[in-house]
């Protein structure tokens, strides 16, 4: 099957006061239709920048240096801004982390959900509003029709995130990108929102990119996982395979360092020494080498390429053979 989204060798830099910072360095990713991909990483690993590049939302300071982002065969790094606007919110939708600040406080919920339908599907305004009401019901907002006239501040955090999902689904996108969609929510509400998102995505046959740092969320919802570190992908595999056979020392360390509900309480947790790297001052070679317990000479000299080490399992590490 042709991938829905194929990112190849993507490099992105940002202009900052301290010079150019390389946020992404040769990122390659494939996503087929109907799949849920989780991008996992810590702060500064490049997971959000990857998502923003797909949408062409890098801002004035960000720049794609090399690489391609092919969405249904079309390279999004080459298309004009007007074409991107046609795609954004229509074929590719985005759900942000902060439902508080990503809704417009002075527009009604109905207006905000109806807008993409009116804009992209060229429906009349009353038709779009009617559809917005149906969408709100679909994301399980009680008394949906009545709440169209309400403003964001009248909704709770969980309800706002449901509104964001309704907006994202409005145009039946092929791809939904959700950047830490539940980090700001309580755990019982997080579970509701993520299942809703997963089920509705499945119903539409769309693909989902879930950006998160929560390995539990990944285990529950993702089909495939990409682990990022220092602006590069260090390992990709199916979720089952990755948790069972993590091969990169970083993935391994992450898995070992989280306390498990069936683990040995009170014992010392495995730790990865040191800190995640600063993107403006990345170590030479493999960015993980200063923290790696299995570091070789080669790791300090060059960057390991991402290569296939097992079916559907890719790894960027010199230590593996």
């Amino acid at each position, binding site marked *: 099957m042709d991938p829905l989204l194929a990112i190849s060798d993507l490099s992105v830099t940002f202009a900052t006061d301290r010079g150019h910072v390389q946020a992404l360095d040769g990122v390659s990713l494939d996503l087929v239709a109907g799949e849920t991909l989780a991008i996992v990483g*810590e*702060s500064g690993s490049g997971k959000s920048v990857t998502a923003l590049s797909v949408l062409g939302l890098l801002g004035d300071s960000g720049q794609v240096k090399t690489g391609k982002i092919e969405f249904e065969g079309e390279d999004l790094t080459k298309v004009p801004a007007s074409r991107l606007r046609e795609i954004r919110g229509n074929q590719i939708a985005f759900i942000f982390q902060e439902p508080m600040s990503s809704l417009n406080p002075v527009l009604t919920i109905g207006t905000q959900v109806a807008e993409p339908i009116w804009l992209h599907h060229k429906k009349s305004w009353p038709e779009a509003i009617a559809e917005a009401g149906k969408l709100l019901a679909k994301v399980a907002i009680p008394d949906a029709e009545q709440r169209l006239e309400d403003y964001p501040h009248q909704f*709770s955090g*969980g*309800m706002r995130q449901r509104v964001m999902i309704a907006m994202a689904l409005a145009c039946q996108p092929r791809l939904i990108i959700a950047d830490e969609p539940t980090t700001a929510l*309580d*755990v*019982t*509400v*997080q*579970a*509701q929102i993520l*299942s809703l998102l997963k089920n509705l995505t499945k119903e539409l046959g769309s693909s989902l990119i879930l950006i998160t*740092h*929560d*390995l*539990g*969320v*990944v*285990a*529950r*919802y*993702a089909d495939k996982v990409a682990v990022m570190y220092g602006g590069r992908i260090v390992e990709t595999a199916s*979720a*089952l395979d990755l*948790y*069972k056979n993590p091969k990169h020392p970083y993935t391994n*360390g*992450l*898995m070992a*360092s*989280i*306390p*498990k*509900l069936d*683990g040995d*309480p*009170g014992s*010392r*947790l*495995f*730790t*990865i*020494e040191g*800190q*995640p790297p600063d993107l403006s001052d990345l170590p030479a070679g493999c960015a993980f080498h200063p923290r790696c317990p299995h570091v070789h000479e080669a790791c300090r000299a060059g960057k390991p390429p991402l290569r296939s080490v097992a079916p559907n399992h890719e790894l960027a590490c010199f230590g593996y053979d």
Partner: protein
Amino acid sequence: MTNPNILEVEDLKVHFPITEGLLKRQVGSIAAVNGVSFHIRRGETFSLVGESGCGKSTTALSVLGMQAILSGQIIFDGENITGWTGAQMRHIRRKMQMVYQDPFGSLNPRMKVGAIIGEPLRVHGLAGDREKYRARIKHLMSTVGLLEEMSERYPHEFSGGQRQRISIARALALEPQLIICDEPVSALDVSIQAQVINLLMELQERLGLTYLFIAHDLSVVRHISDRVAVMYLGKIVEEADRDTLFKTPKHPYTKALLGAVPEADPELEARRAEQLIIGEIPSLRSPPMGCTFHTRCAQAMPICSIDSPTLKTVDATALTCHLY
């Protein structure tokens, strides 16, 4: 040691006024903490778990004397400190310190790290002469795994994990008996959380500390706690020792909470039938009648919406639920 408990909280109530209009007329109140009782034994880790608005942080602030209470009793180290303020509380805070969630907001950006760690000593007049003060800061820094030469730097030069070490060093400065940790790792990167959790456990063993641990991450809570209390809308709904609570949770809310947290194991997750708890946490302005959880409880009975359940002991668990 006569009293095995370092802290005893009895029927604590904290209400916040709801005011309206220009004159801030009080039109009602919010029962943020509504009859909470627990005790903490010396040397143990006691955790308060719950979602936002359950009153876990307000309870902690009340214990520290940083929050006025409506009623109840707080006994610390054998002394009834209920309602103590200012100078009285200052003497208690030498024995009771706090580590906050946000390592970015809780350190003064204009102070050098050494000065931050030494501040409690200066405030309490324990700094002593220059040599002694320096040596003490050096010792505190090495205790939490910071290098001595870092004392001349400012907080912004440190990562989240290192800042949390600075907070812990500051909390240790007065050699307290009890440290209240309010979500100490939830703002940190995953690979850093384990470092801080290990440090907290090591310090407890070495220094005989007692922790009141406030968190929402159940796997962290299970790892570090001896006993756990689950809070919902200002009340403790279930309390037990760690193994009892995690192996045989009894209250429907505890069960729901445990079910809502995804485990980092895709095979286990695939086997686990997702049982979603319905609805959201009700507003504290108008909490539900009867058992406050009945609006979301899958096992609610008619009585649950009428009568507030009283505290019962079932096996080794204390809980408030009509099902038992």
